[in-house]
């Protein structure tokens, strides 16, 4: 492959968030210097000062992310298409990578907004939070454009290391420590497995870039196949597909909720996009075997995710298993492996972002007094006290369940159409059957919110940043429920077409 001239502009999104991370680090130091002269400041003043600094940092990070998203969208509109690196292509700039970059940027942006009032509420308002979040976002930007095993591995580590730290960010809370530990240990093992798989692929094909691997892969052979299996296993861990999902419930529950929201949407997006690119570029004629393997993973994830979610009493845990189930739905698209399926997967990820951020935002809006209100009983009678919050929560849950009238249904619908088209009837039936199971647990929250009496009376209020996030997510879910493919406001953008353009990266 002829390497293109190294175009620094192509790195703009990555550059913006990386610089943003450095700026927030510096800013925190400078601002806290000014705020805490001397040790004699009383704790109350310190807290207030911290909260103010946190807002400044959040704005700085938002600015960095918005710039990155703007750059990505600009690149997408212009239809850039280069594989680049200073010498040999490491990253690929194309519709898929810019689409995913914008999507991940959106997830990161919403997570930053979620954190503004949540961090002070849990008393973990430290500037490093935003820097870590931005660094992880940078890692995902690398991940979604990686066309080489080396950049894939580095992107993965850059994504994961900050999240390990973020998961343990609530240092006073044992649960948070343990979540971080568990995520770290299992993640490190998974990435070692992935690395070993990469080494084997390299050995079998003599290349580390995806196209080189696809040329060398011809015919497979035991070495290449076992390498492939290990790589898929390593990536499956990141997107929490059964049987590599064991970390999910504990980490979702233990990590601070804003971190959970962040990783639930962005890591999943990045992981699925890189898996997609790897499968399509490195295995152009994805064999029957790989399809069957992915199908088995999909079926297991749907079954186990949905069944386990039914018995959970903690909302975050339940959502973790539901995340496993959704990973299974997405894997159905992977098993189908047609261009329509890739489009459906990307659209699903897009919609999934709003539903998931929205749901976790409601959990965050309930947090107060340094404690999370995340057991199902904590939601009882919410509708009588905070009706708007209960209403949007119901909307998000219905969307996750895939009830018509929500964007979640459209996403599932496109997936089903693509899978039927590819003849994956067995998987579609599993999808449908497990969706029936999922109604049980998604329905529980609306039922307790609307039909039971309020037990506790926290007088928390939804902060304005949370209102913005909730309104945005709810509006998006309603809008894309009806206009996934239409353009009633004449913006010239139709969501499904955008996803289709992004999925068309192979030609």
């Amino acid at each position: 492959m002829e390497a293109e001239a190294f175009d620094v502009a192509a790195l703009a999104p990555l550059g913006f968030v990386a610089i943003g991370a450095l700026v927030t680090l510096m800013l925190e130091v400078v601002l806290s210097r000014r705020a805490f002269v001397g040790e004699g400041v009383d704790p109350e003043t310190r807290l207030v000062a911290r909260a103010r600094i946190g807002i400044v940092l959040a704005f700085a990070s938002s600015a960095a992310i918005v710039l990155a998203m703007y750059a990505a969208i600009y690149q997408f509109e212009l239809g850039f298409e280069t594989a680049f690196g200073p010498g040999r292509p490491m990253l690929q700039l194309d519709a898929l990578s810019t689409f995913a970059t914008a999507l991940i940027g959106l997830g990161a942006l919403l997570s930053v907004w979620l954190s503004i009032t949540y961090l002070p509420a849990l008393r973990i308002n430290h500037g490093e939070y935003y820097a870590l979040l931005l660094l992880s976002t940078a890692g995902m930007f690398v991940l979604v454009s990686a066309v080489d095993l080396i950049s894939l591995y580095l992107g993965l580590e850059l994504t994961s290391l900050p999240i390990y730290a973020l998961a343990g960010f609530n240092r006073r809370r044992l649960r948070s420590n343990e979540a971080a530990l568990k995520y770290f240990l299992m993640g490190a093992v998974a990435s070692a497995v992935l690395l070993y798989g990469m080494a084997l692929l390299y050995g079998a094909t003599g290349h580390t870039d995806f196209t080189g691997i696809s040329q060398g892969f011809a015919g497979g052979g035991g070495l290449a196949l076992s390498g492939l299996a290990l790589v898929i296993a390593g990536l499956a861990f990141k997107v929490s597909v059964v049987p590599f999902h064991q970390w999910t419930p504990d980490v979702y529950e233990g990590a601070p909720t804003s971190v959970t929201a962040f990783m639930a949407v962005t890591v999943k997006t990045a992981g699925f996009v890189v898996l997609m690119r790897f499968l399509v570029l490195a295995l152009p004629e994805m064999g029957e075997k790989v399809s069957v393997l992915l199908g088995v993973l999909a079926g297991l994830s749907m079954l186990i995710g949905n069944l386990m979610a039914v018995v959970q009493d903690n909302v975050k845990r339940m959502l973790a298993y539901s995340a496993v189930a959704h990973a299974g739905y997405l894997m159905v698209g992977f098993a189908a492996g047609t261009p329509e399926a890739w489009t459906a997967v990307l659209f699903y990820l897009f919609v999934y972002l709003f539903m998931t951020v929205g749901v976790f935002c409601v959990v965050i809006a309930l947090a107060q007094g340094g404690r999370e209100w995340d057991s199902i009983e904590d939601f009882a009678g919410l509708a009588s006290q905070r009706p708007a919050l209960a209403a949007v929560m119901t909307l998000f849950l219905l969307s996750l369940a895939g009830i018509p009238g929500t964007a979640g249904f459209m996403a599932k619908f496109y997936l089903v159409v693509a899978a039927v088209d590819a003849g994956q009837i067995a998987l579609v039936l599993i999808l449908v059957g497990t969706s029936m199971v999922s109604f049980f647990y998604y329905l529980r929250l609306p039922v307790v919110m609307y039909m039971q009496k309020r037990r506790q009376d926290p007088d928390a209020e939804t902060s304005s940043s949370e209102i913005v996030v909730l309104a945005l997510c709810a509006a998006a879910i309603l809008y894309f429920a009806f206009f996934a493919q239409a353009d009633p406001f004449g913006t010239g953008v139709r969501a499904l077409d955008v996803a289709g353009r992004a999925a068309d990266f192979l030609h």
Partner: protein
Amino acid sequence: MLGPYVDAYLISWVVFLPLASGLLLLVANSVAGFLLRSNGLPKVVWQVIAMSSTSLTFVASLFGLWGRFDPEETGYQLVERVAWLPDYGIHYFVGVDGISLVLVLLTSFLMPVVLLASWNEIDRWSRSYLFFMLALETAMLGTFVSLNLFQFYVLWEVMMIPMLFIIGIWGGPRRIYAATKFFLFTVSGSLLMLVALVIVYRMNFEQGGALNFDLVRFVGHAPVPGVPLLDTVIPATTESGAPWWQTQLWLFGAFALAFGIKVPMVPFHTWLPDAHVEAPTGGSVILAGVLLKMGAYGFLRFALPLFPDAALAWAPWMTGLALVGIVYGSLVAMVQRDVKKLVAYSSIAHLGFVMLGVFALNLQGVTGAVLQMVNHGLATGALFVLVGFIYARRRTREIADFGGLARPMPVFAALLGFVVMASIGLPGLGGFVGEFLILLGSFGADPWAAVIATTGVVLAAAYMLWMYRRVVFGPLDKPENRGLIDLDLRERVAVGLLALPIVWIGVNPSPLLRRIEPSVSILLQEMELRRSHDEIPSAFEARSQELP
């Protein structure tokens, strides 16, 4: 000024008017509070808004739809079609034929009556209640007029959400259980239908058709009368070499599950008594009056015409289930001690009649089934309304707690007697015509089925009259019953409004039949045309050439 728009989009106006006023209700309180500087307006304001919008909807459907509907013309009328998700062949596509017309009228008629009847029943969150009722009306009307499979599915599922909340928030003591059960049964049942829809859609495409979810082929401005539904050739069995999931037998099964749960047919009926007993009066009436009709309507509109071979193959089984429903429903109704539960089980029996008529697959049977849907909606609705009135006075529905109500409440007794007669199918009232046609059709299809069904008629008379006797006659031995106040004007008007069409249909059913029959006969022709005899592929080609 709006005239031309109203003309061109008549159905949409009817369908979306309730939802629009419902949304108005949601925002109105804050707006009014802001403008008038008050803490919201009294409940009666919201009730008046809801009442007037539903009444307007009824008037519009009566004069607009019924008035402009041309009984001479077969096929769909007043059609509207707007691109929605065009790349997937999904359109906002509505239109009415005789079958949907009467059901639309039934729905829009019941809604204001229900609101009137349950005027004082809801005492908390009444604005939300009215919103859910209005949203429910839009969803129901939209389902009846949908001519696009996808749109139908979406509305079909969306319909359950308001009902879930109506039962779950304003229902009786076991409301959470009942609401959840109702929702899970009906929503999960339809998921397989979605898969079947998608499969049919793909098959249509693979056979060279467009990517299309429209039920009828759309030519020019309006669908040509009698045009085939979706030009797809669906093999009857796997013998043609098709994979199992592309055969009519399986696809029909998926549809039948969704519709059968909704009807409800017997093995899937268990959600119904719970939902009815726990629901507030308004919910019960709508549930019995309209929602149950959705299942039978779905069979007529979608399952039969799309899968005629499978419908024939399944017909004996479905007839059997319908008969089981009739007999079982009647027998269980007989031993009920709770009036509402009794009415709920009688609904199962009545819907068994409807399904019997549908699967007679002949003109009398199907016409009778459609007519019976209307009758059942009116009569059972009135029964639930009356039960609601008595429950509001005594806070009990146990038959044993009553007795001798004729003395303190003569008007109530008279109206209940009338409605019971209507429900039994007394000649001269609506129920008689429908049941008679069904039995006639069923006799033509299978005499034995008609014979068994007749026992259902007898049983219905037995349990209804027995209930009536125990509630209204006999000694007035309970002291609580002595001081009961008779129905007031509002209540009399509500029941009277329901009684009016019952008499009208009984005396003069021909305006209804004149509109239902042509549509039914087209439907049956359609089925015959699409039967996959061996020459079907050539017939398919011929049809494709016929149409541009």
